């Protein structure tokens, strides 16, 4: 069983399934792909993230050895290595996925628009019956009962009327499934520190202060602005964009003491892509240090500075506030020793990667240890980084701490290899 179907879970599931073993994949969201599906392009190669990921999500969806439980969570796990018994709780989607053809008419006709806080990070909208993205795997919608007019007010039923195959089922209940598995890979990933935690940066009250994933959505061709850089407050193209690295990371007094590892690289990418889209725009990055250890990474930063004329200011931003339609950025340039104040049109915060809130409960169910921050703890950080400490349960990806895509994929293949070597001993 693989828990979590982001890029780590997908890689691990495919490696094991392609070796000929059956894989059960459990994903909390209605469709697979994880955070990588929200990204525009990946560093340092600037590959289109969706383009390189969707062949893999489709392969998982169609693989004859992979059984997919989306919109589901692990309820309990008993037994031991070679013989785990798992109970999986599947949330009601209010759509009978066995007969739904994924035609999308229900989403087109649904009269209720809501702001998509999860996938579109509050920038785009979705309907009350929705799939996370047009490339969703499985391409089957779910109804969100908190916003659906039928669930909140008892009327509407538009989706039911228009569904050509009669798949809408308002009475669907939670279901429990049982599976038996030999080994488990936990690939539950990360979350971003919410903007509300950052009082010094407006605590989420300034519309033109957004987090890095929201900026990924603005950059994405399939995102809410079709790839145009338009700021949330008035839909105008921002001419001065300030990027703040280490927003909540490397800040032991107020936030997370650790380095989130990927922000230097993706912020350089953000500034670069912004400059490619807005030629007369200025991109300014505040940084503490530039940490670009990786193949082609330092060269990428160099390219942002020399080719794309991104301005790097070494120092922290102390405060952000709104004034006269601008976001005032007050910070320090530690190289010149001066305070700086910039009136920006848009501010992008490279917020800290933090453990998913569900990780604690899951770790308890599986009998796994957490570190001081709430990330999953490896059996041994040097020699057993993929082992959980409980035999037969392995770890991969950002669930154990911040990681970029290449490292996550390596870990996933490594964990898959661990599982396969276990299975090979049993014949």
């Amino acid at each position, binding site marked *: 069983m693989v828990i979590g179907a982001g890029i780590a879970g997908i890689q691990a599931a495919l490696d094991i399934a392609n070796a000929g073993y059956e894989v059960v994949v459990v994903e909390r969201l209605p469709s697979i792909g994880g955070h990588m599906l929200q990204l525009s392009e990946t560093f340092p190669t600037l590959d289109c993230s969706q383009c390189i990921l969707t062949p893999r999500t489709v392969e998982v969806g169609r693989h004859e050895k992979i059984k997919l439980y989306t919109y589901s969570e692990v309820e309990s796990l008993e037994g031991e290595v070679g013989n785990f018994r798992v109970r999986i709780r599947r949330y009601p989607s209010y759509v009978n996925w066995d007969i739904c053809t994924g035609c999308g008419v229900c989403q087109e006709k649904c009269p209720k628009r809501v702001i998509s806080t999860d996938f579109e990070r509050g920038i785009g909208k979705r309907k009350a019956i929705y799939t996370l993205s047009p490339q969703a795997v499985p391409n089957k919608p779910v109804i969100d009962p908190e916003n659906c007019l039928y669930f909140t007010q008892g009327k509407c039923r538009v989706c039911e009327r228009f569904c050509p195959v009669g798949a809408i089922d308002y009475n669907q209940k939670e279901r429990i499934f049982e599976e038996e598995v030999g080994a488990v890979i936990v690939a539950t990933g990360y979350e971003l520190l919410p903007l509300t935690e*950052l*009082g*010094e940066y*407006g*605590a989420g*009250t*300034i519309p033109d202060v957004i987090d890095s994933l929201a900026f990924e959505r603005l950059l994405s061709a399939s995102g809410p602005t079709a790839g145009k850089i338009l700021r949330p407050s008035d839909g105008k193209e921002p001419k001065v964009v300030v990027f703040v690295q280490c927003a909540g990371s490397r800040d032991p007094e*107020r936030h997370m003491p650790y380095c989130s590892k990927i922000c230097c690289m993706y912020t350089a990418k953000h500034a670069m892509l912004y400059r490619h889209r807005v030629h007369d725009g200025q991109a300014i990055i505040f940084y503490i240090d530039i940490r670009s250890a990786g193949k082609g990474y330092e060269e990428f930063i160099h390219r942002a500075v020399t080719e794309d004329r991104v301005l790097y200011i070494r120092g922290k931003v102390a*405060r952000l*506030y*709104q*004034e*006269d339609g601008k976001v*005032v950025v007050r910070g320090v340039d530690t190289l010149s020793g001066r305070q700086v104040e910039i009136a920006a049109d848009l501010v992008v915060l490279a917020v800290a990667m933090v453990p998913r809130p569900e990780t604690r409960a899951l770790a308890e169910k599986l009998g796994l240890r957490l570190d001081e921050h709430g990330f999953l703890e490896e059996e041994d950080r040097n020699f057993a980084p993929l082992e959980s400490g409980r035999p037969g349960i392995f770890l991969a990806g950002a669930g154990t701490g911040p990681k970029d895509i290449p490292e996550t994929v390596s870990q996933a293949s490594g964990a898959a290899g661990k599982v396969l070597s276990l299975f090979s001993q049993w014949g």
Partner: protein
Amino acid sequence: MKVSYFPGCTLNTKGKGFDRSVREALAALGVELEELPDWNCCGASFPLLVDNVLDLAGPARVLVAASAQGDKLATACTTCYNVLKRTNRVIRLDRERRERLNYFIEADYQGQVEVMDVLQILRDEVGFEEVKAKVQKSLSGLKVACYYGCMVLRPPAEVAYDDPENPHALDELMASLGAEPVLWGGKVECCGNYLVAIKPELAMEMSYRIISSAYRAGAEVLVTNCPLCQFNLDRWQRDLVVKKGGFRPLPVLYFTQLLAIALGLDPTRYELEKHYVDPKPLLKAKGLLDQEVG
């Protein structure tokens, strides 16, 4: 509800309008402030600057007196709050200093009193919903910039009862009175009060930035909970109107003055005439003060 009350020297002298509005507004909300008998100076911020334990004897004596009267001690002066709260923390956490202090002032005090700022009492003990229900004269249409003294927020781990970087208790209180708190960037900027003696021109510049930022955000009045900030921001405006072209003065009020007015109490009792920037024309224009008041 009865709560022990420590006015402190500022509220006993220059800040009488603050003191009286605190007592009367809280009484109107059902909180009886019981002044400590024979209280002495909290020591201002100086006793915490050095390690000498005996400097804490003054504030410790205040805490001992409060412990004889109840389990909470209210104060409205932000400096008194900071000193009493931090002294109490030393007594709670540092056994050696606690024992020496008790020996010196002949007491047996373990830090059991809860030191609370008046704004905190309004939020946690009375509740802003309850305040809202008792409003007689809504402050609707009044745009306020809420300004928080650093003394109730820093050092955060020791004294803050609100988000130190983005405090909002005062904004919420003002909203519950019907006023409109503006979103602005100066709410926790330093007013420069401690530089008044050594670098007055810098202190003036800091006040200038705060007041003009509030003005640009559309505020008609600055509201604060700190007597030092109040004096500093108010007093500098006498110079700023002369020295800074285009400067528009803003009245600087204590939050309890507006609270008392909203609760229907008599505004003329709160020394509005002693402010450097006269708040009366604004209050009259908003229908919060009778036209006849001089």
